[in-house]
């Protein structure tokens, strides 16, 4: 056999190849442009046409945005100013914007007995000339004015900052006791301990401590009746309360629906189907009207609280279904491993199943949250002043009658910013969890 032949038939590598870096390919912006925008005559034409359309749109919109008038007192005042007239000629309705007018009725987080300053910060936008009537909705019942002294009287009684703060502290206390007991005893005992600690605090200590603090540091909030809260303050108040409260409730419902206990699972199914099967508007009307019939008048619960409860109950049904999907994706082996290690039901759920199920459910949960936040505009149906209804109120005034374009764009933009932020946060959260697992 020749040397050559033997080499082709049997071959043994005597040196191993070291790892080499991957070939350097052309990269960066130039390559991207060439491949995506200018890869042929047709694409070049499309790119140019798109650029031209973009220019047309932006040359109209950008000056309007930059030269907008932010501090006029009324439409007429605005029209009289040069910046206003500049674009108004072309687009007709493109007046300076007045987002300040959309400020929520009033956010009275202020030391008591001080004249209330408007909370422009709630909108995060410049806000100087806001006329009084805008904050006293024209359509609000005259009775509002008749009740004026009430907030002041309540403020005189000591206001309400220490009371709620001390009540909230009860939750923290209960949680701390639960956390402390948990590693040392069984979960049921720890939970009971936490609840007991909170109850004792509320029953015997909350009142005296709040009173003492109020005497030591006399600050208080100016009470605001629910029908005087409006705009995005109202939306965020309902939305954020709904979001925080509906998640735990949704988790419990999802667990109940998968429970081995027949009664529990059937009750959860009925609840979810009934709540989902009826439009939110109907539930809000129930909250507004029906509850008044059923409850004795001295039990009357604030309308805002009723709405928050309804929105929470409604969202919880949707979230429960999303989480149920996540629970169904957990392999049986996880439950078996937990069982074989002697973990109980709640420990298995809390430590093993829910962390995995919730991770899977994040997109669906955030989807529900976004829906919930936007649905808060439905409360205009039951005579609360959501942002959309605020725009009606603003347009009903003599100063701002006749504008609507700016108002709706502004309302839409603010909702978009909130919802988009939630969506990005959910993606970030997903990616972070994904990275940590694999």
């Amino acid at each position, binding site marked *: 056999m020749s040397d050559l032949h033997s080499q082709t038939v049997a071959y043994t590598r005597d040196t191993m190849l070291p790892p080499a870096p991957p070939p350097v390919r052309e990269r960066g912006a130039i390559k991207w442009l060439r491949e995506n925008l200018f890869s042929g005559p047709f694409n070049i034409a499309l790119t140019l046409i798109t650029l031209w359309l973009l220019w047309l749109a932006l040359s109209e919109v950008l000056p309007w945005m930059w030269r907008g008038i932010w501090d006029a007192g009324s439409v007429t005042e605005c029209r009289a100013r040069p910046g206003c007239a500049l674009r108004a000629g072309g687009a007709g309705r493109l007046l300076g914007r007045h987002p300040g007018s959309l400020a929520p009725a009033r956010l009275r987080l202020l030391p008591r007995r001080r004249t209330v300053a408007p909370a422009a910060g709630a909108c995060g936008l410049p806000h100087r000339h806001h006329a009084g009537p805008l904050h006293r909705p024209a359509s609000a019942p005259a009775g509002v004015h008749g009740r004026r002294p009430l907030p002041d009287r309540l403020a005189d009684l000591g206001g309400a900052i220490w009371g709620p703060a001390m009540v909230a502290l009860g939750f923290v206390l209960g949680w701390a006791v639960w956390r402390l007991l948990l*590693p040392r005893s069984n979960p049921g005992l720890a939970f009971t301990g936490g609840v007991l600690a909170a109850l004792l605090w509320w029953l015997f200590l909350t009142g005296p401590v709040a009173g003492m603090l109020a005497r030591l540091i006399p600050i208080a909030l100016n009470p605001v009746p629910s029908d005087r809260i409006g705009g995005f303050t109202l939306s965020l108040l309902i939305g954020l309360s709904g979001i925080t409260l509906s998640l735990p409730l949704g988790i419990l419902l999802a667990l109940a629906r998968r429970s081995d206990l027949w009664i529990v699972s059937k009750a959860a199914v009925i609840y979810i189907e009934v709540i989902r099967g009826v439009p939110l508007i109907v539930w809000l009307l129930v909250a507004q009207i029906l509850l008044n019939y059923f409850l004795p008048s001295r039990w009357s619960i604030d309308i805002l609280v009723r709405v928050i409860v309804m929105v929470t109950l409604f969202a919880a049904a949707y979230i429960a279904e999303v989480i149920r999907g996540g629970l169904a994706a957990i392999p049986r082996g996880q439950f078996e491993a937990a069982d074989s290690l*002697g973990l109980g039901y709640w420990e298995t759920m809390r430590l093993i199943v829910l962390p995995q199920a919730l991770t899977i459910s994040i997109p669906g949960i955030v989807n529900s949250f976004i829906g919930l936040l936007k649905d808060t505009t439905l409360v205009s149906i039951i005579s609360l002043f959501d942002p959309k209804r605020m725009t009606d109120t603003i347009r009903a005034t003599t100063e701002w009658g006749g504008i609507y374009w700016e108002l709706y764009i502004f309302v839409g933009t603010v909702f978009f910013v909130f919802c988009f932020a939630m969506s990005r946060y959910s993606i970030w959260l997903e990616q972070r969890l994904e990275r940590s697992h694999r």
Partner: protein
Amino acid sequence: MTDAAPAASPAAPATSDEVAIEIRRMNKWYGQFHVLRDIDLTVMRGERIVICGPSGSGKSTLIRCINRLEEHQTGTIIVDGTELNSSLRNIDKVRSEVGMVFQHFNLFPHLTVLENCTLAPIWVRKIPRREAEETAMHFLRKVRIPEQADKYPGQLSGGQQQRVAIARSLCMRPRIMLFDEPTSALDPEMIKEVLDTMIELAEEGMTMLVVTHEMGFAQAVANRVIFMDQGQIVEQNEPGEFFRNPRSERTKLFLSQILGH
């Protein structure tokens, strides 16, 4: 019942007089389907038992009844002196003394290897975290993967995952270990590392019930081999005798299939 019931006498000498598991006339049904039929089995402390048999013969169901992952309907199962019945306290007691290793590892993917190993000791045994972590590292060293402690299960090979699963069970300091086909989901080159770990465990005197088709392991480690078919114990013997002189036709057929190829 087709075959004559095999004698309940253990063929191999037990390593202790103490009974670890006692199963008497145990029956189990899945709906109408009679999976386990009149199972009688006594396991002495320190005994290593290998269970084999064709797929669907009820091997998994049998060992899953021993830590109550499955509920039996008639007969008795007594583990370490505790009878398995509807008493939740008894079930908890048995589960804290019996470790189980699964075919598909069933590690918790959202927890690190170390957290997988400390979870049950902390939450079930109420051991302080520091101490639980020391124990976990001890057993991770024993299965020879202490350096993977901070990784997630998804980052490990199958063999490494199964060794973590063994370490996770050992962290609860069980007196009995159950293995349900621990190597059948593994690539050939990883089977050995898992079997080596199990052999070490056997040498330390752990009571073990192993469902496996690794006949080499059975030869090397088992005191007794049990052959199951159609929900019944068809034959049991010490491994040498079992492989050399299988008595029932079913056993012969089964052995010729898995050994012969």
